């Protein structure tokens, strides 16, 4: 029996179900996007809409001596010009800390910096005008005087604390953490082989094609703020607007329509967005802010600037004994609200060594402030770093031991029958399938064949490399992720299902859609569980005034948590429908089933009552039903994962590259990913999540880096200078799956959205290093530019 056959969505005696789960159904909601009929924030048209542009600090660290708005105020089309003090009267500051990250600290942050700007690009004044062009014209007319302050740019310099950025603190350390499990020193002492390497990860960013966007519309008559927002977490933002703008929760409505990419970038609180909402209240009219590309580079969160030294101890038989690492990461001048900028580093120390069964683990983490743009959670948070340094050092150990890297991994991976299992870092895994995934990967890619080909080509002076990267991934987080730390971020999600009079099914969910296919898979689950065809289902998401309360879309949680809520609501609705059918038909409920929009006789499969007829009776002729019977055709259910802190998933990737050892150019030939996300609800969508994620990971490995000058100027804030992966250089990506369902839910789905990004950089790095190994060269600083490859080769 395949995993899909055992799905619990129907009673076992049912023979008639047409299940959509596990089918590659195209997404219904993609059709409008294909015709350019989506509605992104910037597509909305409002009367009296005002546009805002911001004056941003040209310095990495400076006191604002004075700002003269007189010329700007007089410019054509200008409605108002405001500084930090003016906006602070309407919007209170926030502090990005969490209770369970012990000792984390950050200063209060305001919508517009008031006395001091702490990074180049921090907004210090807002100009509101009739058009965006007029607002930009007027920004140029603001006369600002600055007193530059010493800027801390380098993370080691920050750690040294010679210059302290925030006067209220004694040092620049935002957060630090130590883990020391087992007997690490003894393990290294007794090891036959010890390898050590330092890895460096370039600060990069999300580059959503649609910039951050918000249209805040305050109605003074109702004292009501409606925010059209490109956010992944509408309820979280509702709570935050309510709290910081001092409005009753019920008077804030957050609506998310189409969103042009998010990947974690659009789940944070941004000062310029808070400012836009405040301006709408101040001006009593709708105000729109869409970050242009320059602003995006300067103010969208960045991520992943880490320098890590890692050591691995092993026996001569190839048994890994211990990992020991020291991670230093720089996050900019503020910890971002409300998720904090401590989580990424925290994930690195939680996840390193994750796939392996070593017993000893030590990690030290320092998260420090710098005068660069802030960093925070971006797709796969911490995973790409943990995976790359784990898999990098594992390859190095295999090399030193003279073992094949695949074989070395096999010896050390946690056995597939060992679960539940607690890893050396203290993470609890419910069920993982490292060995099945490894086997599947090796056969999918024809590992042996590729190795033979590699050896052949090497003789001809062609340098091919094969790199593996096994991974574990955090998905379906429980309240242990944020809630326990005091953040008002929901770990639960809800779904409401309503059978309409014509037999159509409306699904409302608190999870949001940014193109992952959330709405599509919810339709599949709902249709399957209730017994209707897909064309009957309409899914609504992204509106705090209509959907159930919930967390939204982040941390690979939509399908696993939101999907389970849909499943549970569907089961309840189905039962209610059968109650009504039993009443109408005057038969036993247990003898009925629902199939293809009709109530049928369970035994014979004979059609008894179309749902449209049932709906007609229930809504318009309830007088014909038994006296005490009340039909309930709308049902809401919620789901919170609680048994485990996270529903871990696993997978493994492989990359095949060719390095031109004369030019240092790396050509990606092919990429493979086998992973286990539990129940695969829609293979088409899952594979595309992986592929998109892999390419983002490749971006980190080969192209993407925010370059800062020594005085803290971002030097490549355009798409011409900040290189993202484009179609011409990307490889085809082969996907495979192993399905071990989580037993924490009936649906059995784990997350998948971040897997690709988590593993790709490590796989590409190992592939390059495999290609270079016979030349005694190794790269460890991402992104691997031709220059860095040539450096490693000692050419030039």
């Amino acid at each position, binding site marked *: 029996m395949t995993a899909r056959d055992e799905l619990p969505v129907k009673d076992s005696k049912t023979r008639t179900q047409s299940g959509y789960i596990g089918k590659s159904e195209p997404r219904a909601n993609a059709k409008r996007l294909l015709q350019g009929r989506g509605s992104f924030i910037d597509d909305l048209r409002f009367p009296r809409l005002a546009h805002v542009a911001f004056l941003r600090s040209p310095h990495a660290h400076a006191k604002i001596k004075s700002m003269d708005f007189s010329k700007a105020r007089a410019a054509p089309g200008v409605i108002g010009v405001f500084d930090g003090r003016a906006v602070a009267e309407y919007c209170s500051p926030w502090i990005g800390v969490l209770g369970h990250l012990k000792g984390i600290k950050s200063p209060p942050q305001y919508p517009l910096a008031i006395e001091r700007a702490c990074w180049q690009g921090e907004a210090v004044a807002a100009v509101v005008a009739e058009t965006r062009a007029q607002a*930009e014209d007027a920004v140029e007319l603001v006369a600002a005087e600055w007193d530059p302050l010493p800027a801390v740019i380098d993370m080691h310099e920050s750690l040294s604390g010679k210059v302290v950025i925030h006067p209220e603190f004694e040092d620049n350390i935002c957060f630090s953490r130590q883990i020391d499990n087992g007997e690490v020193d003894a393990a290294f002492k007794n090891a036959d082989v010890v390898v050590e390497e330092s890895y460096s990860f370039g600060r990069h960013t999300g580059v959503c094609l649609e910039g951050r966007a918000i249209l805040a519309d305050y109605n003074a008559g109702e004292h009501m703020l409606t925010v059209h927002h490109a956010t992944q977490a509408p309820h979280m933002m509702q709570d935050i607007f309510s709290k910081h703008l001092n409005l009753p929760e019920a008077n804030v409505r957050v609506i998310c329509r189409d969103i042009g990419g998010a990947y974690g970038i659009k789940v944070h609180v941004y000062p310029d967005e808070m400012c836009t909402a405040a301006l709408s209240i101040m001006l009593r009219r709708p105000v729109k802010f869409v970050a242009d590309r*320059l602003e995006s580079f300067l103010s969208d969160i960045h991520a992943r600037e880490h320098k890590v030294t890692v050591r691995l101890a092993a026996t001569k038989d190839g048994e890994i004994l211990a990992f020991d690492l020291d991670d230093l990461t720089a996050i900019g001048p503020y910890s971002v609200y409300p998720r904090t900028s401590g989580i990424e580093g925290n994930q690195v120390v939680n996840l390193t060594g994750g796939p392996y069964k070593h017993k000893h683990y030590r990690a030290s983490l320092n998260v420090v402030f710098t005068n660069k743009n802030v960093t925070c959670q971006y797709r796969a948070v911490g995973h790409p770093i943990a995976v790359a340094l784990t898999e990098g050092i594992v390859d190095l150990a295999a090399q030193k031991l003279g073992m094949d890297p695949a074989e070395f991994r096999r010896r050390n991976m946690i056995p597939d029958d060992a679960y539940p299992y607690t890893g050396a870092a203290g993470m609890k895994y419910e069920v993982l399938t490292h060995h099945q995934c490894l086997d599947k990967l090796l056969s999918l890619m024809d590992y042996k064949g590729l190795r033979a080909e590699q050896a052949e080509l090497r003789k001809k002076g062609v340098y091919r490399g094969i790199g593996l990267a096994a991974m574990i991934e955090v998905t379906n987080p429980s309240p242990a992720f944020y809630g326990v730390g005091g953040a008002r971020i929901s770990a639960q999600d809800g779904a409401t299902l309503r059978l309409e009079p014509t037999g159509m099914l409306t699904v409302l969910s608190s999870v949001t859609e940014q193109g992952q296919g959330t709405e599509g898979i919810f339709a599949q689950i709902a249709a399957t569980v209730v017994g209707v065809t897909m064309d009957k289902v309409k899914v609504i998401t992204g509106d705090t005034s209509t959907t159930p309360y919930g967390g939204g879309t982040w941390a690979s949680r939509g399908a696993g948590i939101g999907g389970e809520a849909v499943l549970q609501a569907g089961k309840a609705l189905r039962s209610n429908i059968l109650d009504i059918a039993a009443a109408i038909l005057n038969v036993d409920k247990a003898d009925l089933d629902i199939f293809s929009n009709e109530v049928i006789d369970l035994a014979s499969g004979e059609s008894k009552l179309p749902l449209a007829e049932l709906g007609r009776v229930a809504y318009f002729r309830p007088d014909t039903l038994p006296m005490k019977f009340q039909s309930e055709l709308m049902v809401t259910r919620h789901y919170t994962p609680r048994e485990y802190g996270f529903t871990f998933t696993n997978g493994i990737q492989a990359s095949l590259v060719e390095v031109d050892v004369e030019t240092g*150019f790396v050509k990606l030939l092919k990429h493979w990913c086998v992973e286990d996300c539990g129940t695969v609800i829609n293979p088409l969508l899952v594979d595309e999540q992986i592929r998109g994620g892999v390419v983002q990971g490749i971006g980190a490995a080969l192209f993407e*880096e925010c370059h800062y000058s020594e005085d803290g100027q971002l030097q490549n804030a*355009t798409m*011409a200078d900040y*290189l993202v992966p484009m179609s011409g250089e990307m490889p085809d990506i082969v996907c495979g799956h192993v399905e071990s369902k989580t037993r924490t839910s009936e649906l059995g789905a784990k997350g998948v959205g971040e897997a690709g990004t988590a593993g790709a950089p490590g796989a590409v790095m190992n592939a390059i290093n495999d290609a270079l190994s016979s030349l005694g060269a190794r790269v460890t600083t991402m992104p691997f530019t*031709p*220059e860095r490859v040539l450096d490693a080769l000692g050419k030039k």
Partner: protein
Amino acid sequence: MKAPAFAYAKPRSLAEVCALLDERGETARVLAGGQSLVPMLNLRVAAADLLVDISGIESLRGVSVTADRLCVGALTSHREVEQSAEVARHAPLLAQAAPHIAHVAIRNSGTFGGSIALADPAAEWPACCLALDATILTISKAGKRSIPARAFFKGLFSTDLRPGELITGVEIPLTPGHRSVFLELSRRRGDYAIVGVAAMAKVQGGTLQDVRLAFLGGGDRPLLAVHAMKAAEGKPPLADLGPALAADLSPMADLDTSARTKLHLANVLARRALAALAG
């Protein structure tokens, strides 16, 4: 990211263009394809009071051939050059280089003359013009000029163009019997090159004659590698032109690539280009 305000004029004749440019001086800028000027305006790194759109001057458009030269009109788009049968026949170097310029949508708008006028050191056309020993034709109220490409490019985004002067076209001497090779290294397809080479030579019995090597990305302007050309002249393809190139080129470091690496890459390309010419 909206451009600052400017006025716009679209003259119907060359005389009108010249008069406008003369009258408005530095405050006016020629608008050809707009593929470099418009992004600079949008980014507010350039400004102008007046844009003089020359796209209405039909005489500046197209490729023509005479007995001994090929003329590419200033308004000929990159794409037209890429697809021109005359270019493929008489100046294949240009056809080889064209696909490296940006992407189809940009090649449809961007013009040959615009690229020469802009004089980006990493651009393809200026280096090709050097390799082909082309002549830049200009016009202004003061009259017409013909400027050899080797005297035209003066420095970073700087040329021999005088205020109020317009490029009308480029003349390329026909060189039947020459082979040409265009190679460049860019991180992604269509990006400006880190470094590239436009190479030409005749091949006689395995040796290269009349070798011309022009580099893009080799300095603050496109550069003819005279020492390297001399070193390669009359020989079978050389494996190392490093010392000669060090004398010819002085690459500028960019964010990802140091000057030294660029020099190294130029040497790799030169070797590959010579081998390809001979092969």
